């Protein structure tokens, strides 16, 4: 029995370091910076993305960006007070659909990348803080004014997860709140799920063309 436990411990030790090393206690600003740099680096080299391949961009986002986002929290924020009347099953479906919508929109924005550079604003954090904002600025070549891009992160166990992205002062998450509320008022939580599914389907169809 002890041998079994030992084996299990050994196995988990060997299996997990890769995953753990990746997410382990990277401070939020360093996390944002490393993910951003990595993604930009790939975009600059990837011929498919440069040619406008949304499919390839989605793969990239799912691989590199998604693990650092807390989509359940994001969806709860977007849905607002109606979130509580959703069953766990509905919450799961909402989260999946909302994630797909955000990933697709974000990925498409990536394919429009043209030599933008990212600046990181000075970041200060009090010890023990578990909810922070990392501020960045996107400089477009030729444009006079950089676009601000802020990430809100919270600490989940050891890892920091992004739960909101604010572009030029507009939260990509809470900006959905009133249209989500309207959908829920008209068709309940299931109505909102259906609307999101239909939206994702139509976007998917448009990508295939």
């Amino acid at each position: 029995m002890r041998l079994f436990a030992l084996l299990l411990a050994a196995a988990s030790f060997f299996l997990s370091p890769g995953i753990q090393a990746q997410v382990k206690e990277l401070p939020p600003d360093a996390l944002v910076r490393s993910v951003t740099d990595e993604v930009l680096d790939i975009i600059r080299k990837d011929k498919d993305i440069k040619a406008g391949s949304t499919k390839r961009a989605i793969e990239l986002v799912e691989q590199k960006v998604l693990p650092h986002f807390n989509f359940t929290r994001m969806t709860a924020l977007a849905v607002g007070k109606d979130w509580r009347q959703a069953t766990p099953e509905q919450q799961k479906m909402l989260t999946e659909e909302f994630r797909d919508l955000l990933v697709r929109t974000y990925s498409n924005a990536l394919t429009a990348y043209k030599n933008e550079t990212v600046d990181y604003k000075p970041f200060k954090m009090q010890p023990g803080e578990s909810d922070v904002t990392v501020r960045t600025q996107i400089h477009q070549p030729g444009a006079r004014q950089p676009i601000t891009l802020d990430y809100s992160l919270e600490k989940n166990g050891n890892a920091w997860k992004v739960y909101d992205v604010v572009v030029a002062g507009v939260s990509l998450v809470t900006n959905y709140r009133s249209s989500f509320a309207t959908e829920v008022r008209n068709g309940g939580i299931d109505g909102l799920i259906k609307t999101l599914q239909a939206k994702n389907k139509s976007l998917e169809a448009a990508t295939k063309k």
Partner: protein
Amino acid sequence: MKAKMTRQISKLAIALAFAGLLGGCATSGNPKDPIEGFNRAMFGFNEGLDKVIIRPVATGYEAVLPSPIQTGVANFFSNIADLMIGVNNLLQGKPAQAASDAGRVLVNTTIGFLGIIDVASSMGMEKHEEDVGQTFGRWGVDDGAYIVLPFFGPRNVRDTVGLVFDVATDPVSHVDHIPTRNVLLATRVVSDRAELLKADKVIEEAALDKYSYVRDAYLQRRRSLIHDGNPPKLDPYSGLGDGKTAAKQEGSDASAQVAARH
């Protein structure tokens, strides 16, 4: 005479009731948007105008002109705008920013060939974005109801009043030679629109309902601008978490949220 007036009044009443009805079927009950029916109609009008005239022209402009020239044109108008941006910063009690804006105009108008090259930005003088609506906001004027203006698009009551001042003090509209003025005004509209072409697709894709997406983005953006990018957190749901924390707060803030919505 009296009968005529009564008739007029009743006509008006019918029109208002009808407008209310229109508003009634489109409204999502957003307290910031009491005239949603009217706003949606105006939004549709602006979208149509954009689709038929402004966007095609801007697309052509973007396709034909080399991008350095587009940048030059945009810089030229941006430099003119910096003048009133500086005045607004001064009115908002931010003399350092105002001085920087004045410096920008000075540097860009001279070394930057009438503003065509934004030398000031590369010298570290940051471009700001201010207008009279923001100045009012800074002074504590409430934003009032959301309203979609023909041609100008999303505003709120405060920013509409601000817009009147912005237009009245716009140096371009004070150019004496009328044809020149008109060419300048039209070029500015096209140049501004061309810079937003990229955002079109993203908004179309992201929004479930474009009207409310644009409205809510406008409201958030203005709030952020008034606080120069650092608005105080105003989110009754931020403690919602993933459902774990929700149970704890259930009793206390659920009613507060309902109250906040109505």
